[in-house]
């Protein structure tokens, strides 16, 4: 396996074998360790000292299903912290099967220079001028690339938002159908890619030099066990294929924890209209797909294809967090508008979550009315054209709050919360406060624990411990390239053991019960927290905005009640 370094200033590409101490890492573990070692913590995230790293998971490219997440890591221009954002699609498997552990993009192109980084079927990397792609939106860009270089290529690219270096810009990843609809959206990594002068990474999918497996027979057996656990999981076998993550709209609203009207209420008026159940009915009636494979080697199929009244493709995988941000926060209870907004964000290359929340902050300031779908579409279009208001919104909710002088901005370390209000689901407040990534939707998502009745969302007891366990586990699984849905099914002693056996069979080194996920997760989190510390972050940054402590959220009319001391005990290592 090799590590490719690309210097955008010198236009050089070098390959080196993977250093010994990175060998058992992949995905988030690798990107975070590398950034912590190589990126000056106080550097300008959009300057030449920052690095942008693409790393398939440690198990990506192996026959283990649901291992197609690619981690993208950097210092974030949105949060100023270390950042890993991972995306599904096809690129992770493609890179791993070319024997590539990571691509490290360094330096910065000369102003006005724009490039494609192409990895051919032999795993050789080269930079190609991308002048003709300048300003192109991601759907057109991906289509043109695949026409030019062949359909058997995965594409990770930025849209206009990334080129303009807007700090909510995403990196879009092509799915199995070749649509750039999966995203490493959080943390503004699209802006880092834009700052480097890199429009797209193109990866040939025909690689055959995947990493060796030490004990193929044991690996096959271990994979069988993991697959069985994942398939036996009711959520993965029943709910995800039929509703996807949109199945959360109903329970979270019913529990009064759906942040809406810019996090001023916990239950959206008319939420039934944007529920997963209604969405699935609508998709079925129109001839779209409620069950769809978004990523290589998926056995769960949480994705969907949303079509318009005429059956025409609008977007793929309309997901919970997007429905929440674009529909809940803005009070736009209309799936067609939300789907259109999702597609626009993917096309322009901005995070749907940050953008939805930014629009909600603007609406809350009186700039537009809550529920005005047409206005929201126009505002996202403005991001694509980089108008004044487009630039503000494209820089995320905190920038929008500053512009409108609105302090009611639900961000932690500059990044918006996800679709669970910390006042009605306390554990999410712990995760949002303490995740080294800023507020995050996957880093330690607690909602499942509430629905499984393991924890009372409104009681303090157990929230810190649960968030800690989940954050550690996710940091470990994100290192492996596993998708979240499969991870959740494996969070039991039996599941973790089955998964350890897969890793052990690959490396030939037997892992003990503490090694994974616990020790691996801690190792990753330590590196991330160390970077943040050196960048100047302190405990004081691990706090929710004031209004969560002061303004009760209807319908429960509760505030966030976990003390600072308890929050600070989350990571007492």
């Amino acid at each position, binding site marked *: 396996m090799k590590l490719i370094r690309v210097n955008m200033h010198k236009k050089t590409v070098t390959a080196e074998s993977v250093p010994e101490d990175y060998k058992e890492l992949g995905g988030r573990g690798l990107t975070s360790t590398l950034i912590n070692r190589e990126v000056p913590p106080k550097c300008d995230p959009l300057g030449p000292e920052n690095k942008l790293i693409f790393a398939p998971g440690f198990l990506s490219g192996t026959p283990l299903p649901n291992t197609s997440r690619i981690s993208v890591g950097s210092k974030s221009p949105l949060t100023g912290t270390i950042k890993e954002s991972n995306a599904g699609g096809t690129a992770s498997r493609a890179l791993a099967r070319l024997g590539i552990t990571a691509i490290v993009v360094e330096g910065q192109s000369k102003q006005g220079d724009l490039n494609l980084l192409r990895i051919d079927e032999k795993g050789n990397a080269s930079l190609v001028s991308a002048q003709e792609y300048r300003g192109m939106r991601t759907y057109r860009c991906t289509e043109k690339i695949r026409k030019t270089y062949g359909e058997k290529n995965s594409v990770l690219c930025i849209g206009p938002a990334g080129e303009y270096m807007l700090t909510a810009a995403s990196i879009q990843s092509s799915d199995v159908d070749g649509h750039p609809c999966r995203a490493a959206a959080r943390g503004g990594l699209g802006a880092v890619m834009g700052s480097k002068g890199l429009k797209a990474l193109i990866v040939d999918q025909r690689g055959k030099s995947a990493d060796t497996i030490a004990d193929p027979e044991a690996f096959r057996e271990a994979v069988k066990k993991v697959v069985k656990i994942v398939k036996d999981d*009711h*959520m993965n076998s*029943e*709910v*995800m294929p*039929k*509703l996807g*993550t949109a*199945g*959360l709209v*109903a*329970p*979270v609203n*019913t*529990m*009064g924890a759906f942040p809406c009207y810019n996090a001023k209420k916990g*239950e959206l008026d008319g939420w*039934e209209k944007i*529920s*997963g*159940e*209604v969405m699935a*009915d609508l998709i079925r009636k129109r001839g779209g797909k409620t069950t769809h494979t978004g990523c290589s080697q998926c056995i769960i199929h949480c994705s969907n294809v949303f079509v318009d009244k005429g059956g025409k493709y609008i977007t793929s995988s309309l997901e*919970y*967090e997007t429905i929440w941000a674009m529909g809940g926060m803005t009070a736009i209870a209309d799936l067609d508008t939300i789907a259109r907004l999702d597609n626009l964000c993917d096309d322009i290359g901005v995070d749907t979550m940050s953008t939805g929340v930014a629009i909600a902050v603007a609406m809350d300031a009186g700039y537009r009315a809550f529920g005005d779908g047409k206005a929201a579409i126009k505002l996202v279009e403005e991001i694509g054209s980089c108008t004044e208001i487009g630039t503000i919104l494209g820089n995320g909710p905190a920038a929008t709050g500053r512009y409108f002088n609105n302090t009611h901005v639900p961000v932690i370390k500059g990044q918006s919360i*996800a*679709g*669970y209000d910390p006042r*009605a689901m306390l554990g999410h407040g712990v995760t949002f406060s303490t995740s080294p990534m800023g507020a995050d*939707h*996957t880093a330690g*998502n607690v*909602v*499942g624990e*509430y*629905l*499984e*009745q393991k924890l*009372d*969302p409104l009681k303090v007891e157990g929230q810190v411990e649960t968030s800690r366990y989940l954050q550690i586990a996710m940091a470990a699984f994100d290192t492996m390239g596993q998708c*979240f*849905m499969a991870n*959740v099914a494996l969070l039991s002693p039996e599941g973790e053991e089955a998964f350890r056996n897969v890793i052990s069979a690959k490396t030939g080194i037997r892992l003990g019960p503490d090694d994974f996920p616990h020790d691996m997760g801690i190792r990753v989190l330590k590196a991330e927290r160390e970077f943040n510390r050196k960048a100047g972050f302190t405990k004081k940054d691990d706090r929710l905005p004031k209004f969560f402590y002061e303004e009760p959220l209807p*319908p*429960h009319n509760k505030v966030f009640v976990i003390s600072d001391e308890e929050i600070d005990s989350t990571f007492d290592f």
Partner: protein
Amino acid sequence: MKLKVKLYGTLSCRFSDYQHLQGMEVEIPDGATVQDLLTLLELSESQNAVAIMEGRVLKKPDKIKHGITVNIFQAISGG
């Protein structure tokens, strides 16, 4: 007592005339518990059904209040 039940996720598949936005009416004895209701609806353990009433997740032995809507979901995780 009569109560309104709304089914979410894939739980309504078994009830052919179930209307999503309306829910359905169910008759249960006074003092019945969540478990009684799940049994009546033949929702099995493996379906991970969870009842939410007045914004709170209920435990199986919890008694169901009069004149209330019970929402039944399947436990899922987010991300």
